[in-house]
């Protein structure tokens, strides 16, 4: 059986000047949590938006393959995509305040999705919404359904977003930095909830984050993205035990670990920022920030395999 989501050599450009995604490939299997990790501007959110065909105006996507449950997404028109979005594939965004409509109650926003995609009565939709709010750990769902987004805390709003995404029993859930705007305590609660729902419902979950601490705790598989490319991909335990790409190694050193740091030692960091890359760029996108870079890095970058299922883009030997 083919993968739930299969993306091969995805390219996304904006107006012929910026190449936001450059030949990224990834798959999400049924019942798998796949984390896409990287810094701001590395193309991870654009990848998600390209999969959902929600790119901003001027954005253009091409791919060798882009299939969901075996269906070719590149061939679907707007109506065909609208039939899938919020239905079999759903998305959760970073900022729950801006992605909920402030003028409508939680109940009316949650039921709208379901009534649009499934032929059900308002009564059935409301029951399902209340049931899901309970499942995501919200006490007194009946009260919450009648409330407006501003009456809820950030953590509750993100729970509502998750419940809303689950209304039509999706196969694939794409979550773009779902906990970045939240307190660490609430972040742990939301991630725990996502992991539990993923397991119980057998969802394919594509989780986008910049934090390797989150990745380690929740992902089955990881793809590290840099300057529009997937520079390393492996099963989670493998990636953390034996990171091959210098960028992955650098990211790992940046995560502060309580009780394991010395005050007089600087934290690991990666100097510089993600470059903006245009069409026709050659060589390794990370070479300007890489301590191992040499002259060959300006030309071709070999695709290497360290172990079965562990691939990376770098000239360094496995």
């Amino acid at each position, binding site marked *: 059986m083919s993968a739930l989501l299969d993306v091969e050599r995805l390219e996304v450009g904006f107006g012929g000047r910026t190449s936001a995604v450059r030949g990224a490939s990834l798959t999400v299997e049924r019942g798998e949590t796949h984390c896409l990790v990287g810094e701001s501007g590395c193309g991870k959110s654009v990848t998600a938006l390209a999969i959902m065909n929600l790119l901003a105006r001027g954005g253009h996507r091409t791919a060798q393959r882009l299939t969901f449950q075996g269906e070719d997404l590149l061939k679907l028109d707007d109506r065909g995509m609208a039939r899938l979005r919020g239905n079999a594939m759903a998305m959760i965004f970073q900022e729950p305040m801006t992605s909920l409509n402030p003028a409508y109650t939680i109940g009316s926003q949650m039921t709208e999705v379901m009534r649009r995609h499934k032929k059900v009565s308002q009564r059935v939709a409301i029951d399902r919404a209340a049931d899901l709010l309970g499942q995501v750990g919200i006490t007194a769902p009946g009260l919450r359904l009648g409330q407006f987004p501003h009456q809820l805390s950030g953590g509750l709003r993100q729970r509502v977003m998750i419940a809303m995404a689950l209304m039509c029993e999706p196969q694939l859930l794409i979550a773009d930095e779902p906990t970045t705007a939240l307190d*660490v305590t609430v972040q742990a609660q939301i991630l725990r909830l996502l992991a539990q729902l993923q397991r119980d419902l057998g969802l394919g979950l594509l989780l986008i984050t910049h934090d390797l601490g989150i990745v380690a705790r929740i992902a089955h598989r990881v793809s590290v993205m840099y300057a529009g490319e997937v520079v390393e991909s492996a099963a989670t335990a493998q990636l953390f035990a034996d990171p091959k790409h210098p960028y992955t190694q650098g990211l790992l050193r940046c995560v*502060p670990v309580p009780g394991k740091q010395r005050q007089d030692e600087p934290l690991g*960091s990666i100097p510089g920022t993600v470059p903006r890359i245009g069409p026709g760029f050659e060589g390794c996108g990370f070479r300007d920030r890489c301590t191992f870079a040499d002259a060959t890095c300006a030309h071709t970058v070999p695709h290497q395999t360290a172990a079965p299922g562990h691939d990376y883009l770098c000239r360094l030997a496995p």
Partner: protein
Amino acid sequence: MTATTTLPAIELKSVGKTFRVSGGILGKDRRVVAVDGVSFAVPPGGVLGVVGESGCGKSTLARLILGLLTPDSGDIAVEGQRIVDMDRKARARLIQPVFQDPFSSLNPLTRIRDIVAMPLQAQGSFSRAEIAKRVDEMLERVGLPGEMGNRLPAELSGGQRQRVAIARALVLRPRIVVCDEPTSALDVSVQAQILNLLAELRRDLGLTYLFISHNLAVVEHVASEVAVMYLGRIVEKKPTQALFHQPEHPYTKALLASVLTPEPGLGVPDVGLGDVMPDPANIPPGCRFHPRCPIAEPRCSTETPPLRPRPGGGVECLLVP
């Protein structure tokens, strides 16, 4: 060596601040207790990390210390002077802020050079040549290339903007800097750069920091002492090492448990705090943490926990000896 003062850089004595929030046309006004009986002292050159969730009063605390708000009760002294008695210019020379969001704390229509020059110009006592010289020095000091000075904030990355905010805070050579979540809006990789820069500047310039964050792991790296704040009160305060190695308050333990370290296989921890969020307009009786406390006993909802002293601070919990 010159004579060093033994006065604390920052000293708070039973500081309280309550806001009145309108309840609308029909509702009653609500009293929001943001800071409630907070006392501590930070020695010169020290770094006090203040940690807690949204709504615990940590940003109000920062604004009180900066003199942007006046306390309802208690006293705040900075280098021995009451902050409310100082005039704005003198205050600005002594204490400066770095805020959380470098996207909204920099004027988008002002060039970087002019943003950094603003505190000098506001003093009215620096020549143009001196301002230009100090701005150049400061930009270099925070790791921004000189040509960056002619750009606008929108042309900079988040990390670069936070460097600008730090340059602006330090250009008057203050003695104390209040950092309110300076890295929360940044990527982990950039966060590390900014934390390292702040640590280096403190060492080189002999600064005192009040460093506010919701993430204990971030604070550990910069702070010499840590205060954990919950609903307006400091529930545990200790030297950094002691707090991380012998946390006593259940809330401190929950905060520590919620730090996701990059260790695969451990899964996401159950922090055990439930989904009841703390509401500063409705502070529970007894121990204010009891509705979320995983080990609360019946007496926790009626008895107010006393301060149990510890070296360098103390802990407020009925269940610790």
